[in-house]
């Protein structure tokens, strides 16, 4: 792995996730939008299973990085490979890549359809015409929403609360059976209970797939465990297992961020 020399990565016992073979690999990713440098030589990898938390101040480039991973931004430089395949030459193009790498945005966006139809929204026309009840139940259960909506699956999705809509978006992404899950601050505007339910779902899902979760909430990053990737000003500053990252941060920038939630890495 070709990692920026300024990035600090711990390879110690207890960093089990880092010891696993990597499934997603980013090498020297740079991105410029409107003549402004957003990402600068970002390199890291995600293990085949487990949660990785991407933290950093606003404007660090975290959300942009997720968009590069799914080619929603396509003018980035560097190499991104998923399961050893370069995402630039993904079989079936960007649409197929996005079905393989699920992305859940910060703000839930349900489509003007029923709860049931929202869950199967991403499936092919042929699949949608078949009975997908079992798939819908499985995905809603995985997203910790089944108990709350099982009696009203054909109600409009926009009648759900924001927290429920966010979990519906998670179920909708899971219905495509992605092999990687990317989440952009999935619990930013949720109540504590919804937050707790989504975190529990992520822990379950992470047993089978790599999950990259952007979060501003440092306590959440601690709870999610796995590896923590700290970004500031478009650069990766430090990567470590959650316990080490929060108890023994190596970099001065990390310590400043953990203490005062600010980062000056120019």
């Amino acid at each position, binding site marked *: 792995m070709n990692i920026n020399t300024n990035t600090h990565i711990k390879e110690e016992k207890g960093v089990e996730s880092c010891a696993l073979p990597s499934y997603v690999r980013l090498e020297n990713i740079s991105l410029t939008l409107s003549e402004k440098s957003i990402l600068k030589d970002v390199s890291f990898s995600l293990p085949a299973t487990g949660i990785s938390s991407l933290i950093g101040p606003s404007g660090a480039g975290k959300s942009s990085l997720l968009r590069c991973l*799914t080619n*929603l931004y396509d003018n980035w430089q560097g190499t991104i490979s998923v399961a050893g395949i370069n995402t630039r030459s993904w079989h079936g193009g*960007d*649409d*197929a*890549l*996005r*079905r393989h790498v*699920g*992305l*859940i*945005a910060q*703000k*839930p*966006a349900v*489509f*003007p*359809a029923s709860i049931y139809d929202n869950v199967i*929204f*991403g499936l092919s026309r042929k699949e949608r015409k078949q009975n997908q009840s079992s798939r819908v139940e499985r995905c809603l259960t995985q997203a910790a929403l089944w108990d709350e909506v099982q009696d009203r699956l054909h109600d409009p999705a926009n009648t759900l609360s924001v927290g429920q809509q966010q979990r519906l*978006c998670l179920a*909708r*992404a899971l219905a*495509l059976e992605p092999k990687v899950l990317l989440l952009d601050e999935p619990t930013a505007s949720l109540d504590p209970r919804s937050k707790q339910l989504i975190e529990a779902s992520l822990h379950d899902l992470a047993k089978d797939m790599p999950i990259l979760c952007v979060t501003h909430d440092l306590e959440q990053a601690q709870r999610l465990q796995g590896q923590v990737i700290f970004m500031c000003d478009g650069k990766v500053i430090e990567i470590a297992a959650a316990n080490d990252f929060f108890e023994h941060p190596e970099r001065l920038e990390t310590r400043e961020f953990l203490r005062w939630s600010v980062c000056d890495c120019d």
Partner: protein
Amino acid sequence: MKVFLSLLALPALLLPVACFLYIIVQAFPALDWELIVGSSASSGAAGNLFGDAANAGHGLWSQISGSLLMMLLACLLAAPIALSIALFHALWASPRQQRMLITLLQVLQGIPPIVYGLCGLVLLIHLLHWGISLAAGGVILAVVILPLLSSNAIHALQRIPIEQTESAKALGLSVGAMITRVWFPVAWSGMLTGLLLAMARALSETAPILFTATVFSGVLWPDSIFSPVTSLQTHIFYLAQEGSNAHVIDVAWASAAVLLGLVICFSLSARLLRRYEESS
């Protein structure tokens, strides 16, 4: 200050109401159901302007149907083009191209409709030999309403929350699937509002069809798309020239009331749709 500004705004509120009431009062002597559903083509020989004007009270049905036919043809021609322009603007145009497109539409919207009529006369009637016809009128009206229709379609697509588009893309939906399954269900009411406003505009245009599509009389229903039609707008124009005949002037006012009613129907439908769109 509030009172002063309210007084300044008062004419803007009162003038349309006063005009509407005046038209209704003037139209009242001639306005009846027989006039609206009756046909005037049988009342005189084609081309006999003065004879027809004298018998003008026989009915407006052929004029109403002519106006509606031209409006429908114009919308059928302009709507797919406007939709394509809006989709190009949303999907593929660079920011610079988007700015240029908006400017171009604004410029086109500012061109007097008579100029479009003149261009249509030269191109369609003289060069292509279509003759004074429904087709010529429909094409010219389509060009007149295209900027309005395109601007409304662009704005309808712009009102779609970016999160919906990104979510659709993140699910791996193709561009076609995103347009039909996400954009249209969200933007249909905005687009339909634009179409209704464009219909009202097409109904109210007179100058571009005056010498390209319509005749005063002799036509009940056009034989083909390349036959001339009669229309309410031009009918009012011809009748108004008969200032000395009181009955003809009454019929002109009645025609104006019918036309106004049609335009208000489309405009109010658009208004109701916009309210529905805002509430949802």
